[in-house]
């Protein structure tokens, strides 16, 4: 689930007048925001028809595609930024998709919910149950999230695939978390945002 704070942070990383492809665009609010505030052009992509309808209502260009089928419809280096916000965990083959994103965009921006956050650890460690959080509100049996990871996992994944992380931001909505994030990002960060080249 996308949250506004996350989208605002992503938006702050995007230059004016650039070309953006927003994967898993949902109702299109990021593209709408970028279009209105930064004169950005581009497209949203989503697989869910109800999100396509909402995106059309938000007056953005939207393409209905399954990200698991790849991004063959897009030519090399067509976008300044390719964004994947809060959808990485739903992708069947994240490595393949990231390579595709790097093929069509100059920069890739990825955000995902951090499974290393203390609340998830607490639910599993003390409660003995699969974590359910505000970012990941599903139960184990009905979740679309098949590839959850922690910040460390993701950093390691980038290293293994020679993806260069050029910028990152770890955030949480709680005041207490945000004080502690610098010291222990993988413990206190709820949402991680990375820029990859």
């Amino acid at each position, binding site marked *: 689930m996308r949250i506004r704070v996350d989208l605002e942070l992503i938006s702050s990383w995007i230059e004016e007048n650039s070309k953006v492809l927003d994967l898993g665009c949902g109702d299109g609010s990021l593209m709408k925001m970028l279009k209105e505030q930064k004169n950005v052009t581009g497209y949203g992509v989503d697989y869910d*028809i109800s999100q396509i309808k909402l995106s*059309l*209502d938000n007056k953005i*260009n939207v*393409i209905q595609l399954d990200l698991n089928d790849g991004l063959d419809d897009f*030519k090399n280096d067509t976008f300044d930024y390719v964004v994947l916000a809060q959808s990485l965990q739903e992708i069947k083959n994240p490595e393949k998709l990231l390579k595709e994103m790097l093929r069509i965009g100059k920069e890739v921006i990825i955000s995902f919910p951090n499974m290393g956050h203390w609340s998830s650890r607490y639910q599993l460690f003390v409660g003995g149950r699969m974590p359910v959080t505000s970012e990941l509100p599903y139960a184990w049996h009905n979740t679309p999230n098949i590839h959850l990871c922690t910040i460390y996992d993701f950093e390691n994944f980038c290293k293994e695939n020679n993806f260069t992380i050029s910028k990152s931001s770890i955030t949480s909505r709680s005041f207490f978390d945000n004080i502690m994030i610098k010291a222990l990002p993988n413990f206190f960060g709820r949402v991680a945002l990375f820029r990859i080249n």
Partner: protein
Amino acid sequence: MSLNLKTAIAKIEHSIELTSGAVLQTFELKYETYGNLNEDKSNAVLICHALSGNHHAAGKYDKDDKPGWWDNMIGPGKPIDTNKSYVVCLNNLGGCHGSTGPNTKDKKTGKYFGIKFPIVTVSDWVNTQKFLMDYLQIPKWSFVIGGSLGGMQALQWSFQYPTLVENCIIIAAAPKLTAQNIAFNEVARQAIMKDPNWCEGDYLNQNKIPDKGLSLARMLGHITYLSDDSMKKKFGRDLRETELKFNYDVDFEIESYLRYQGEKFVSNFDANTYLLMTKSLDYFDPIKDFGDELKTRLAENKSSFLVVSFTSDWRFPPKRSREIVELLLDHKKNVSYAEIKSNGGHDAFLMENEDYFDVMKNFIMRSTCA
């Protein structure tokens, strides 16, 4: 507000050279309009019809029991909202429902054109539609919309007159036909041309109708418009009577349905028009036709595009629509694409479907509402 259905004939007193090189000195186009043209003439919508369609897209005449072919889509409060838009739909040149075509008479000879009527291409249709546009004094289409062969005309408009179309909706179409598509068309044509009543295409002058061939062509076509699933659901293996007959008459419901569709079609369609329309489909290949010029044409084009396909359509399946989307993405056009879940097959573009209609409505609304 009411639909405000009006029917008229536009007499175009202007010669036109067709792609084939043939020249028509004058021609007539039958058309309908719905809604009202606003003061600044900015709300005109062109509807392009498919193979067996005509100008009667919406509303009902007193004598009819069925409304026009896209009545669920066009009308007051419907996705193509006649309270806001002025909608124009014509019978294409070469058609058989009132426009100049094989079943009208050549003024020079006083005889039916028949097979002598020149083959008309999608590009020719767009040119004749442009004549109608001038005749109606419409400076720009706010939308050009079509499904199947109609979608191909909409696509052709955006290449041929890139500055005259503000929004373009291409439904269940393809940028060109595949060998399989052409093969089906060829069998349909052979069915007509092998009918002893075809008389080398001169049947109207000889008071004959190649009804068997035309109905076969329609039966074949009809199979390609439906999906396996929808046929299974509608007919399954249901028998017309309680037991198998052990002869070659109708056993199954599907046989009876196809025969009925074929016979019904013969009563209101001209075989030579069917030949012409299928050829026009086969010849359609604007990307090849425009070649290098396509780039400049599309650069001039500031339209917003909506491309729609249906999951169970195997005549022009979603991947064919994706080819159109890909082309438009390559040229950095404003394009949106929706793949509608439906088991209606190719004919789904004529059927009511919540997702389909919402997508149409939302896309059209953003341009028609201030």
